[in-house]
């Protein structure tokens, strides 16, 4: 129905051997960065595209892009592995191409078209200590139209994986913690907005995306280092939040628009923003300019890149700051008061609209930060926030709708659960595990972990 998503992969856990697998070769990256802003018009394809529009309701946007297989050979101990021969064949056994990995361990093979391919690597060329995982040296992959299909050979070097389940479990736990804290950073705003206005904001994912993309433009296009770029983006994100509130939600509240109607409006806004972002930014994944080629540091039972560590630390610091703000500051108390009872808060002299405005600004800034952290681990994509939205909802619901601390606890649980679930289910189905958790929790404890029972209607 709609076009195929142009994403390289899911969020989250990567064992050390997978680091950087989705990053295109360096030459490609610059090409893409150029293409991303304004794609050239391919007139010849246009006529065909019109014809296709009639056959399929929504034509594939990516028909202008060639199919290829990309990947990186590296492990945390060996670093990038250069000079390994990669061979690609069609499903029928016809040779397509064979290339060697570059100094960053990367490879890219252009394909004649979408379809099934078999890709294999020369096992003998691997350095000492590095071995293939259980899946062997050959991969069967399906490449969709216009897609850069990442291939992961799952190399092991004894630093992890070889020790068996316990080490992998610890690794996933740490990854899950990072991911969960990241979800929490994004979801606190969602929860506070729900608490203060009653709005279930389905456009919150787009706040995350917009933030991440603004930071990307400042960082990659503007050449500003990522940290100041993030801070600038957070300010812009806060402004976007404020714009949401002043431009849409406050007028709607004034009009007396019902909450269900507002919910549908937020869905409309989400659609509008998401696809507008795709038009402006394009359907590609792009990494930030900094901190990309970090090697994982070995901590004994698990490995972690410094940027992942920084992500955890930043998340914790920010979340503690938010908690302190809610508990100690005047505006934080006012937020809780408005969330508890808006009329009562208003009659006690609290400027409710101002409080809600601050909540939106805070939500926008936090979503931006979460988006940058997500972009740092998973690259920047046009629908990254929307995909995260479901996990945010899972976290917020798990913790109890509308409770700020519940959002925090619930998000961390969702993050850890989603990552840990890959111990038993395939990696591409891990979101489904999060969803199942949500449903199970709703059956057992509908008010969420921290919600109070009395509030359930």
């Amino acid at each position, binding site marked *: 129905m709609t076009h195929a998503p142009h994403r390289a992969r899911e969020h989250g856990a990567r064992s050390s051997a997978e680091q950087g697998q989705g990053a295109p070769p360096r030459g490609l990256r610059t090409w893409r960065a150029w293409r991303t802003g304004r794609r050239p018009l391919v007139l010849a394809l246009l006529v065909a595209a019109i014809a296709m529009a009639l056959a399929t309701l929504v034509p594939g946007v990516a028909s202008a892009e060639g199919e290829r297989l990309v990947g990186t050979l590296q492990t945390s101990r060996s670093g990038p592995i250069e000079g390994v021969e990669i061979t690609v064949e069609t499903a029928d056994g016809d040779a397509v191409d064979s290339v060697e990995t570059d100094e960053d361990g990367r490879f890219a093979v252009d394909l004649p078209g979408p379809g099934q391919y078999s890709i294999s690597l020369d096992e003998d060329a691997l350095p000492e200590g590095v071995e293939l995982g259980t899946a062997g040296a050959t991969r069967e992959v399906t490449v969709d139209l216009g897609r850069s299909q990442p291939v992961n050979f799952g190399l092991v070097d004894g630093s992890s994986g070889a020790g068996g389940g316990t080490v992998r479990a610890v690794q996933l736990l740490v990854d899950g913690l990072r991911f969960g804290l990241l979800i929490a950073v994004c979801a606190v705003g969602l929860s*506070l907005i729900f608490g203060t206005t009653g709005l279930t904001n389905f456009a919150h994912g787009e706040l995350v995306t917009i933030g991440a993309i603004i930071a990307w433009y400042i960082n990659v296009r503007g050449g500003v280092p990522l940290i100041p770029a993030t801070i600038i983006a957070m300010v812009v994100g806060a402004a976007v939040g404020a714009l949401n509130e002043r431009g849409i939600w406050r007028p709607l509240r004034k009009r007396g628009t019902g909450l269900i109607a507002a919910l549908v409006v937020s869905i409309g806004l989400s659609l509008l923003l998401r696809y507008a972002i795709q038009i402006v930014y394009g359907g590609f994944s792009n990494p930030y300019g900094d901190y990309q080629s970090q090697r994982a540091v070995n901590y004994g039972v698990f490995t972690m890149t410094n940027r992942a560590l920084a992500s955890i630390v930043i998340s914790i610091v920010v979340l503690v700051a938010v908690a302190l703000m809610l*508990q100690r500051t*005047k505006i934080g*108390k006012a937020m809780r008061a408005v969330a508890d009872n808006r009329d*009562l808060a208003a009659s006690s002299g609290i400027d409710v609209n101002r409080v809600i405005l601050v909540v939106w600004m805070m939500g926008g800034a936090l979503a931006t930060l979460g988006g940058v952290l997500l972009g740092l681990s998973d690259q920047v994509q046009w629908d990254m926030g929307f995909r995260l939205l479901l996990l945010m909802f899972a976290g917020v619901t798990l913790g109890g709708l509308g409770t*700020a601390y519940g959002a925090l606890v619930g998000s961390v649980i969702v993050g850890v659960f989603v990552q840990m679930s890959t111990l038993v289910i395939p990696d591409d189905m891990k979101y489904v595990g999060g969803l199942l958790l949500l449903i199970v929790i709703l059956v057992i404890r509908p008010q969420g972990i921290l*919600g109070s029972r009395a509030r359930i209607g």
Partner: protein
Amino acid sequence: MPADPSAQGSHAAGSEEIAAARQAGQHRAAPQRLAQAALKDLPWEVGVAKPDAAVVLDGVTRTFGGLTAVSVDHLEIQRGGITGLIGPNGAGKTTLFNLLTGFDQPNTGTWSFDGRDLGKLSPHQVARLGVVRTFQLTKALSRLTVLQNMLLGAQGQRGESFLRALLPGIWRAQEKANTEKAMDLLQRFKLDAKKDDFAGTLSGGQRKLLEMARALMSDPKVVMLDEPMAGVNPALTQSLLGHVKDLREEGMTVIFVEHDMDVVRDISDWVVVMAAGKVIAEGPPESISQNQAVVDAYLGAHHDAPLTVEEEDRVLAEVQAEIALEESGTSSSSGVINSEGTSR
């Protein structure tokens, strides 16, 4: 005043009777006064056994967080009488209503209706046993017409089953009978002219009337009215009171929550006073104003911060106090950002 002679008649008779009874300081045993007569000689003490109890509660408690909203050791409600439930704001009256009708689940306790345990039943099962309620905030179904609202109250409708709904032949006759019954009731409540209007267009008082009429469509045995007079303009109050008394004439047991003491004195046969979740006194209406516990409860309540009606509002008041204080950094219940109902 109702135009329907029968309604007016009984109503007028009721008022006169009360006036007369008050003057004479005794009760006449008119047929409609059976309950009052039966209750006449009971001691005015909490938990007293009634001669013919329809509803019996035992050890019912309900807590929200650390707050005890309801804690009733023993309470009996006389069949065929009008029992008024009064108490200061936050006394747990509405919570008790919610528990009795299955809208809320207690932490402990049992209660029964006609000897049947109601403890584990859901709201619709309670209603099907003949215990119907109205709500403090009127729940007129706005985008249904007045007549549709009424028809909804009828029980045992064949056409309400999914498969039979597809075969109009099965339910058409019953629907017609229900419509006639609904029109009779609407006439009695003087809403018949509005039968095709959306219920959302009615005035507040008319909605209260509609809600009561709709409850009567189910031929209930017990009618529980949560503040039937709240927000009703004075012109309609008398008419509503008349209708409540009519329920008793028809043999129904009425339990109602009310704040206006004049109304309570006017129509109740028995009054139960609650404060802080407990029953602190019960007796005939005239006994209540003499009861020291009641006076204390009401005066005590006035010393508190101004509270609104429901028990949960006490939690909200804590937050308000906290905002006023500004410096206290810790709090139990208000640490959780939560809203349901309040901001919606």
